[in-house]
């Protein structure tokens, strides 16, 4: 089963901390979004494998855009 990770708040992508194929646990930090000069980590909603990443450093993201897709275990 796949799970989409959504953007929780609008901003720009400060860092992408995982790459495609990485095994992750629930609550791992995936991406850091910069908004109002504040770094906001986005956490994994579930454990699994990163199957697709749709953003890169510097991208401007809006609420509810898809950041990445996780293949759940």
């Amino acid at each position, binding site marked *: 089963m796949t799970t989409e990770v959504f953007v*929780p*708040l*609008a901003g720009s992508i400060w860092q992408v901390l995982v790459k495609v194929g990485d095994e992750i646990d629930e*609550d791992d930090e995936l991406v850091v979004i910069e*908004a*109002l*000069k*504040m770094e*906001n*980590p986005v*956490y994994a909603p579930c454990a699994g494998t990163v199957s697709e990443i749709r953003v890169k450093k510097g991208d401007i993201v809006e*609420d*509810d855009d898809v950041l990445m897709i996780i293949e759940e275990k």
Partner: protein
Amino acid sequence: MAVFENMGLLALTPGMVFMWAIGLILIYLAITRQYEPLLLLPIGFGIMLANLPLTYLMEPGEGLIWRFYHYGIEWEVIPPLIFLGLGALTDFSAVLSQPRLIFLGAAAQVGVYVTFFAAYAMGFTLQEAATIGIIGGADGPTTIYLSAKLAPHLLGASAVAAYSYMAMVPLILPPIMKLLTTEAERKIRMKKGRKVTTREKQVFPLLAAMVIILLVPASAPLIAMFMLGNLFRESKVVERLNEAAQNALMNIVTIFLGISIGASMNAENFLRKEVIFIFFLGLFAFSVSAASGILLAKFMNLFTSNKINPLVGAAGVSAVPMAARVVQKVGANADKQNYLLMFAMGPNIAGVIGTVIAAGIFISILQ
């Protein structure tokens, strides 16, 4: 012998030396702690200059810094120009997508009025009391604007109080927020508001300027410039003006603002017991404002199923965007996957407008 008689050293007073220490403390905090450095650094230096004897820098009619002060602040030019830049920096999406959050920004003006009455009861004049109360709005340019109009002798102290408390938002707000909310309330995740269109964001500054100025004409200088700056931003067709208002112009006027405020703080004016009360009452105003925002959010929750996280109420004290960042941090402490930042921007921005309106009301009643 004239050289000796004209030497500043001989005209020094202990008060002046004491003021150097205050100037140095502000410069130190600006450099090492980065407390509002853009303002506290020039203010600190201005204080030291103002307390060097025989410079005539603040001499009416001839002094260099007096000219900055007179034409910039007494003529009420600089605060509205800063508001032009703030308007250009402000995104009203958070307010427009959940208009009910405006009430929280309005509630945070309670501290202004409570303190106004408290200061008046303590023996300050009505004009002085209004200036002290407005510190609770935690909005620097508005405090300066009001003080220049109503109580110029308090300008230095009230400006320094306002900027100091803004710098200390991360220290002052969290205890109040924790005291007034439960763990469960801090964990409330808010539902996203609707998406705001570009057209709405273009209409808003026009409409808001008309309505607010019709209701409170005395707020016009600040509101007009703020909304003009915002229109620059949202129109998307005057990027150069938008850019200039946000950066170049704002930086230039900030320099003159800082040094002028600092230089208004000579020992004679500043070393009085009233000033201690101003700092004390300012802190009181600020705390009451934050508390009112939180309590109103809790009250509103009694009537809605779409719950508001009461922490965002504390962002009604303006201090944009520091107060919203503090809300985000305190919220994330309770639940790290809770993103309150953008919700907190609603009351935060509404708080700025609310403080300007409060100042406009004071001006129309008291001037």
